[in-house]
């Protein structure tokens, strides 16, 4: 490290990325907030009028969509934890030589595009598709069994798409646990249940926390699953934002809705971080 003349080095190294992020991330964010307070339309143009009503109107009109997005997000995240934890636990403690093979298999969906995954999942859930078709035909499932275009379909699609995001951090946290600590618990006459609830589970919570951040935000703001799997009854706030931008060209309203979504999610995450007592959100997510 050239300490003397290298004073400028870190600034020069950070400058290109910093500029890129400033111009294409921070400034657009500010412009979006500004746009969210404007009035006008596509033909006559938009003017800054500090029209706060965009926010109150947005929340009043689409409050139910916000609630549904958060609710679906919560359901899918909880489903992800419940599905991922046992598998991550088994791989971390019992995977033996094949740990990385199992992890690789769990990550396989990521070699297929997100959209294509969702479309394929739709195929699985289609009434006359290759899975449900035979099951219904042979009478294992009732003839009127139907899952596509329901909330179950949307939540299952979300959980399916984001499960690996939950598996990985939980696995990393479990894998890090010093086996001697678990051993010590047994030496102190802990039952297997106690060793799990008092030692392993608390030590793995940072992984669960990171997993929740990595799934809850993208899941609640997703609109692809709702669009492909949910039909018109299950639209989430993402669908509304997309429609307002592209179909209605109602840019101020769409901006207000996007900013509200981000604010709600950020507040949610920080509240969650506080109640869980995780000291440093940055650190937990940065892992």
């Amino acid at each position, binding site marked *: 490290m050239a300490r003397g003349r290298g004073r400028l080095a870190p600034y020069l190294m950070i400058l290109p990325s910093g500029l890129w992020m400033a111009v294409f991330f921070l400034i657009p964010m500010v412009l979006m907030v500004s746009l969210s307070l404007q009035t006008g339309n596509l033909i006559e143009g938009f003017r800054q009028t500090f029209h706060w009503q965009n926010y109150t109107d947005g929340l009043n009109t689409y409050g139910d969509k916000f609630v549904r997005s958060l609710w679906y997000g919560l359901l899918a995240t909880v489903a992800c934890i419940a599905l991922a934890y046992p598998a991550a636990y088994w791989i971390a403690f019992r995977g033996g030589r094949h740990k990385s093979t199992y992890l690789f298999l769990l990550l396989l969906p990521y070699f297929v595009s997100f959209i294509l995954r969702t479309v394929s999942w739709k195929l699985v859930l289609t009434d006359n598709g290759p899975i449900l078709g035979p099951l219904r035909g042979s009478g294992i499932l009732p003839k009127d069994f139907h899952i596509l275009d329901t909330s179950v379909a949307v939540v299952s699609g979300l959980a399916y798409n984001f499960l690996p995001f939950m598996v990985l951090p939980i696995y990393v946290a479990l894998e890090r646990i010093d086996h001697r600590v678990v051993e010590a618990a*047994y030496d102190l006459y802990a039952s297997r249940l106690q060793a799990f609830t008092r030692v392993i589970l608390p030590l793995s919570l940072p992984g669960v926390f990171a997993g929740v951040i990595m799934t809850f935000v993208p899941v609640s703001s997703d*609109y692809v699953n709702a669009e492909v799997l949910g039909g018109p009854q299950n639209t989430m706030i993402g669908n509304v934002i997309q429609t307002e931008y592209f179909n209605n060209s109602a840019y101020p309203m769409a901006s207000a809705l996007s900013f509200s979504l981000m604010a709600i999610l950020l507040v949610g995450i920080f509240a969650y971080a506080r109640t869980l007592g995780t000291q440093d959100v940055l650190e937990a997510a*940065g892992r």
Partner: protein
Amino acid sequence: MTTLTTTKTPVRGRPARPKRRISGLHAYTLALIAWLILPIAIMILFGFNDTRSKQNFEWQGFTLKWYAHLFDKGDLTTAVINSLTIALLSTLITTILGTFAGLALGRYRFRGKGSTNLVLFMAISCPEIVMGASLLSMFVTFNLPRGYLTILVAHVMFSIAFVAVTVRARVVGLDPAVEEAAQDLGAGPWTRFRLVTLPMIMPGVVAGALLAFVLSIDDFIITNFTSGSTITFPLWIYGSTRTGTPPQVNVMGTLIFAVGIVIAVVSARRNMRAPR
């Protein structure tokens, strides 16, 4: 939770060799993997489906014709080429920018480091739709035409943080004494970077580059907001969901899947052989 393991004795030291009998949790893990792979298997299978209707969900016999007629849909081919070139260019730019950012963050103390970290965290945790919407807001405000270039710019933007964080993690684990030794031996900053620092952080750089490539080629939401009339592979598929996705999409997906797995396995092998 007492059914978690089949062993009678508590876990001691390193876990014992895998048991012959399959435990409940082992079976569960395999079932979970099967669930994750099921839609992919169906995607691959229906690339071989001799379908005659627009909807491709009823098995009508095996055929290879979709592989033979892979490039029949001209706009689909263009979309795939767009996706690939955008991913390559974005990976190139992102890896260079992100690597330097990661180096600076992992190695130096400087004013503004805290806020840089905060921006990276925000970029990683920000909902994609908000990023896309804010970029669109900017393009609308300044009346910028959207297309190939705006997609590329957006992809670099959302991948930089991931590369920087990956490289930073690698840099933090390095011994600065090695570079000091190079300096003591008379290596200038550039030589030192090329011959000492870069080889040492290479695994982090490669991991970051792979991540950037995957993020870019897979991205739908932000691309949708920045694309204008330019179409990428995910956008094309999304557009086709209403009318019926043609089997060529399955074939393209299968080929990308296969290539991705080959690259991942090869790079994993190389990583295993390379000294840590």
